[in-house]
């Protein structure tokens, strides 16, 4: 693991405008991503965890420049790619690849799998013709598929096999970073394990950096080195996984951990701090700390003041007014 970050994101903002009224003027915005900062080093997995609508998938797409950021900065392998137009971005795409969530719709149904996997090779002029086919065969083998399967179409594969195809495709151009957006959430448990193991093997083999997006804390814990917890477009806590699971500081992280079920009937009823209510709409996030509406420890100040993401302990970033720098990491109490 080298220290130079391969991907750096600073103050990233993505707003989707809402139009309305007689003249269809912009009347508001969905604040999908609302000022997010993080970085990933070579060979590292950064997990982005959060519930649906928290903006984690949007971050993935913005980082891939599949959608344009509203504000902020994206630095890919030392180069600022934030403002690059699609044409200029193209050369940088080699460095950052992606694995999609849905193994069923992320493959063009009308192309043989070999063509899909080999497409980036062609696009970047890396290999053509027989050379390409050979490389594709290697990739197939590497992800555990028979090379002959390159002639088959996506629908002829099972979900897990499709996900292997997606991995092979992402791998084909030797990227620095892979954005994996819920790559296993559509898979059955037994297959999920296969894919997760493969991802870890590949990371170790090629020194890949993963931006791993998931809602599943257990998966996250398994694959990540560091984890960022998101809530309504913001990172509320960011630290290494051990610290996160043993000493969560943000009330939301705590709530997530206590809500997760464990495959152990003996632990039944041990969950205590279940947050109530629903996630507010990102189009109308609450003022102050976004989480204050569901927080068990919210104070009056939380309702008005926006907590900054602070490094309260070395490598442990938290955005909570009740967790000051160098503060007591012990349990909070309701005000």
């Amino acid at each position, binding site marked *: 693991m080298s220290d130079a970050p391969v991907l750096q994101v600073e103050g990233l903002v993505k707003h989707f405008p809402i139009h309305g009224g007689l003249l269809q003027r912009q009347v508001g915005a969905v604040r999908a991503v609302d000022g997010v900062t993080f970085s990933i080093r070579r060979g590292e997995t950064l997990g982005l965890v959060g*519930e649906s609508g928290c903006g984690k998938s949007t971050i993935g797409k913005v980082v891939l420049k599949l959608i344009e950021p509203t504000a902020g900065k994206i630095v890919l392998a030392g180069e600022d790619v934030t403002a690059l137009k699609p044409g200029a971005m193209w050369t940088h795409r080699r460095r950052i690849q992606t694995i999609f969530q849905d193994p069923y719709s992320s493959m063009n149904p009308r192309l043989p799998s070999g063509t899909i996997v080999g497409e980036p090779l062609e696009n970047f002029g890396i290999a053509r013709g027989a050379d390409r086919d050979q490389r594709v065969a290697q990739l197939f083998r590497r992800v555990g598929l028979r090379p002959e399967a390159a002639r088959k179409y996506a629908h002829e594969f099972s979900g897990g096999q499709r996900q292997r195809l997606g991995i092979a495709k992402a791998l084909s151009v030797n990227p620095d970073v892979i954005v994996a957006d819920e790559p296993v959430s559509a898979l059955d448990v*037994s297959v999920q394990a296969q894919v997760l193991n493969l991802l*870890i093997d590949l990371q170790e083999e090629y020194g890949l950096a993963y931006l791993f997006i998931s809602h599943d804390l257990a998966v996250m*814990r398994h694959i990540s*080195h560091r984890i960022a917890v998101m809530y309504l477009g913001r990172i509320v806590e960011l630290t290494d996984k051990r610290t996160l699971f043993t000493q969560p500081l943000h009330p939301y992280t705590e709530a*997530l951990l206590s809500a997760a*079920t464990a*495959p152990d009937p003996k632990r*039944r009823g041990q969950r205590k701090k279940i*947050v109530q209510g629903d996630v507010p709409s990102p189009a109308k996030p609450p003022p102050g700390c976004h989480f204050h509406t569901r927080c068990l420890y919210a104070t009056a100040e939380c309702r008005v003041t926006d907590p900054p993401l602070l490094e309260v302990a070395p490598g442990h970033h938290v955005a909570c007014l009740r967790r000051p720098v160098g503060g007591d990491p012990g349990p909070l109490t309701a005000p």
Partner: protein
Amino acid sequence: MTGTPGAILEVRDLHTQFSTLDGVVRAVDGVSFDVARGETLGIVGESGCGKSVTAMSILRLIPPETGRIASGSIKFEGEELTTLSEEEMKRLRGHRISMIFQEPMTSLNPVLTVGTQIAENVVRHLGVSWKAGRERAFEMLDLVRIADARRRLDEYPHQLSGGMRQRVMIAMALSCDPQVLIADEPTTALDVTIQAQILDLMIELKEKTGTAIVLITHDLGVVAETTERVVVMYAGRKVEQAPVEALFEEPLHPYTRGLMGAIPRLDVEADAAGTRPRLQEIPGLVPILTQPIVGCAFAPRCGFATDRCRSERPPLVDAGAGHLVACWEIDRVRRAA
């Protein structure tokens, strides 16, 4: 196999099949289980294992164009359901046995108000007026702890959050005080925090009403959290059944073991920042159900498999204390633990 005394629902050797152009799919292939009054039974398995079809078969909701209950018996309070007329079956559904589904997003009718959808169930089965039905709907919404229930009655599903929709589904299912509630993946589509809320709500309501619950899920965590007994299904067959503690304590079927080893765990001691232990994989794919399966369905993927496993279907045997398992090699499996 002996029927549980006081069982409210008895399923015996159920076979449900679908005709497709590729052949007959044996979605449920000889499954039996009982549900006792007030009990929570979990049915767990991966997609395509036949757990949902089992649930649909109980309510006889298998689409008649393609599927049918080929054989077997389903008794509810001693009454045989497979031979009831469609009209009698309708009287039963939503009244004495009701069901909730995985996707609260799509399981509620988008063009009818929440109040109508709950009230119509009450009006249909309890024969009360629409006014009384609405009143009941209000009570139920209040019961599932939907804030401002009166106003929500006139709202449409799209105006509610996912969690609220699932609460509405529960309110609807419980509105006629059913004896059995079948919950098919009730929390799979929900966020973690909401899932926790809903599971808590279900447990609480079960205690309040005494309704037996059949909880169908692929999530071992949910099973461990909520059920009393568990049925594990694979390829349309029941492979294991045990009280929940016993199952998690010592899973006996290699498949169950495989499942438990394959999931990443949150509950074990956190490992150091850099280490990432390998997950246990179950190699291979689930069998194709259009082809008849000889022997144990799991044999091709099983590390313990012998020639006997591949040729002879293992019967369910009691391994002690109500722990049933269908495996020829229980002893070897036990020893391997």
